[in-house]
C-alpha cells in the first residue's frame, strides 16, 4: 500500500456488541503489529486506526463508537467504499515471555501482535480489561491462543476491577521478560513506574490527535522529546518515554491547544 488515498469496499462487518465492530478489507498490503492506517469515510472525516488483524486474505480494523466519526462507522454497510492509506508508524518489536496488556479498544493492536508472536513460537499471555463485558474485543479468540486474564470494571466478565489491579503480583510471580501495553493513557501512567522499578523493558502503543499521519503537520508531537507519534510511534519504548514529559498530563487537540 502507500500514503496515497485509495478506496476499498468493506468485505464484511462483525458486530461484537453495541458500538463495537470490526471491518474487513481485502488484504492489499502488508502491516506490522502496532502500525495504523488512516480510514476515510467519504463525506464525513478521516481518522487513524490500528490494524487489529491481518491474514492471507483480509485486513481487519476494530472500532469503538465514540464521537461523530466512529458513530458514522457504525452505520456503514458491507460493499461501501472507505479510503485506506498507510500503514503508518513504527511497529512493536518481538520478544519472548511477554505480557500483553490491553485496555478497552486498546486490545485491537494486541490481537495482531499476539498472532505474530504465536506464529514465531514465542511465549506470551494476555491481560485484558474493559468497562463491561460487551466492550471486550476478542476474549474467546485470545483464550484459545494463550493464557488470558480478563477484568471488567463492573465484573460482568472475568475479575471485577481495572486491568492493572493485580499487575505487580503478576509480574512478580511469573516469568515475564517484556511488557506490551495499549489502551487509555492512565494505564501507562499506572504501569510505567511499576515496570521501571522492576527494570522490565516495555512498549506502549499510544494515541495523540493526528492530522497527516506522515510526520509533517506537527499535531502529534510529544513534549519535550519532539517525537512525532505518527512516525516514530505509535509504539514507544522505555527509552523513548524517558524524554516524554507530557505522558498522562497533557495532549493537544485539533487546534493544537493543550488539554488536560
Amino acid at each position, binding site marked *: 500500500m502507500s500514503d496515497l488515498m485509495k478506496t476499498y469496499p468493506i468485505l464484511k462487518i462483525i458486530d461484537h456488541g453495541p458500538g463495537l465492530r470490526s471491518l474487513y478489507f481485502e488484504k492489499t498490503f502488508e502491516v506490522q503489529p502496532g502500525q495504523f492506517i488512516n480510514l*476515510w469515510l467519504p463525506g464525513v472525516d478521516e481518522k487513524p486506526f490500528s490494524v487489529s488483524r491481518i491474514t492471507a486474505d483480509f485486513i481487519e480494523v476494530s472500532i469503538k463508537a465514540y464521537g461523530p466519526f466512529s458513530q458514522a462507522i457504525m452505520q456503514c454497510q458491507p460493499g461501501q467504499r472507505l479510503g485506506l492509506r498507510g500503514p503508518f508508524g513504527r511497529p512493536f518489536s518481538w520478544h519472548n515471555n511477554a505480557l500483553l496488556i490491553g485496555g478497552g479498544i486498546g486490545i485491537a493492536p494486541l490481537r495482531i501482535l499476539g498472532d505474530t508472536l504465536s506464529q514465531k513460537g514465542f511465549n506470551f499471555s494476555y491481560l485484558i480489561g474493559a468497562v463491561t463485558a460487551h466492550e471486550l474485543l476478542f476474549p474467546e479468540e485470545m483464550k484459545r491462543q494463550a493464557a488470558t486474564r480478563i477484568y471488567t470494571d463492573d465484573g460482568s466478565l472475568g475479575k471485577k476491577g481495572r486491568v492493572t489491579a493485580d499487575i505487580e503480583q503478576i509480574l512478580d510471580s511469573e516469568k515475564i521478560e517484556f511488557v506490551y501495553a495499549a489502551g487509555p493513557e492512565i494505564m501507562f501512567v499506572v504501569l510505567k513506574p511499576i515496570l521501571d522499578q522492576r527494570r522490565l523493558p516495555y512498549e506502549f502503543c499510544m494515541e495523540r490527535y493526528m492530522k497527516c499521519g506522515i510526520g509533517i503537520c506537527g499535531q502529534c*508531537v510529544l513534549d519535550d522529546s519532539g517525537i512525532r507519534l505518527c512516525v516514530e510511534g505509535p509504539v514507544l519504548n522505555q527509552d523513548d518515554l524517558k524524554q516524554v514529559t507530557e505522558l498522562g498530563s497533557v495532549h493537544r487537540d485539533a487546534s*493544537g491547544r493543550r488539554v488536560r
Partner: protein
Amino acid sequence: MLKTRFFKAELETPFVLASGILGLTASSMIRVLDFGCGAVTTKSFNMEWRKGHKAPSILPFENGLLNAVGLSNPGADEMVREISQFKSRTNRPLFASIFGRTIDEFGQVAEKIVGLQPDLIEVNVSCPNVRSEFGRPFGDSPQDTAAITRLVKNIAGSHIPVSMKLGPHGPGIGLMAKACEDNGADAITAINTVGPGMLIDIDVRKPILANKTGGVSGPAILPIAVKSVYEVYQAVKIPIIGTGGVTTAADAIQMILAGASLVGVGTAVYERGIEVFHELAAGIENYMTTYGFKTIEDFRGLAHE
C-alpha cells in the same frame, strides 16, 4: 561553509523550516533544528484558536502534497507560550508566522509577539485554503498587502525584521513584492502553496479533501517557485526566503541562483524525511567545492547575469 547571517540571526545552514511543517510546539521545532535546519518558522497563528478543516486535510500525491489544513492553530496565547519555551531552551533562530482574518488582527497578533523577540515576523497573506471562510487572500490585493505591511512593520519596529509571505497568484508576484518593499517590508518569503487544486477519488467519485480544494506543495510546484523567486529578485532589493518544492540540493541551488538568500523547506520533510537537511547541506557544499564558491553569496542571483 553554509553558515549564513540573516539580519541579526546566525543560521548554521541556509535552510528554513517552512510554516505549517512541524511548527506547532517548541519541542517539535527544536528537534528539526537538531536535524540541521538553520531556522524554523512557526505554524501561522492568529488571535483565536482554530480547529481547521476536517480530514483528509493533508493528502500526498505522486508529486507532492495537497493540503487544506485550514490555518488550524492554538491561538496567539498558546503560541506565545511555545515561543517562550523555545527561547528558554535554545537561542537558534525562530521566525514567527502570523495571519489575521482582518487587517486589524494582523496588528493584534504582531503586538502579542514583539516582546518575545522572534528573529523575524513572517506575515502570511497568501494562504489559499480559507477562501470559503475569508474570501480572497489579502495577498491578492496590493493595497491590502501594503496596509498590512505598514501595520506590522510599525509594531515590529526597527529591531525585528518583517517578511511578507506571498503566493504566485494575484496581480503578479514582482508587483506585490514591490508594494511590500515600498511599505517597509524587510524581506519576502516566496511562495506559499499553489492553486488551490483538487484530487478526486475515481471509485467514490468525490473530491478527497474534506475542503474539496487545497494548496499544492512539493516537487510539482518547484518551477513555479523558482520563477517566482527570480521575478521577486528583479523587482526588489530586499532578501528573499525562496520556498516551494525544494526536495534536493539541486532544487535548493536553483533557488539561490534565482536570488534566494535563504531556502524554505516544507514538503521535503515528508518526501525525504526529517534527515533531508543533511542531504541538502552535503549537496550544496559539494556544488560549492566543484565551482569554487566560498559562500552562498558567491552564487546568489547568478542566473540573472
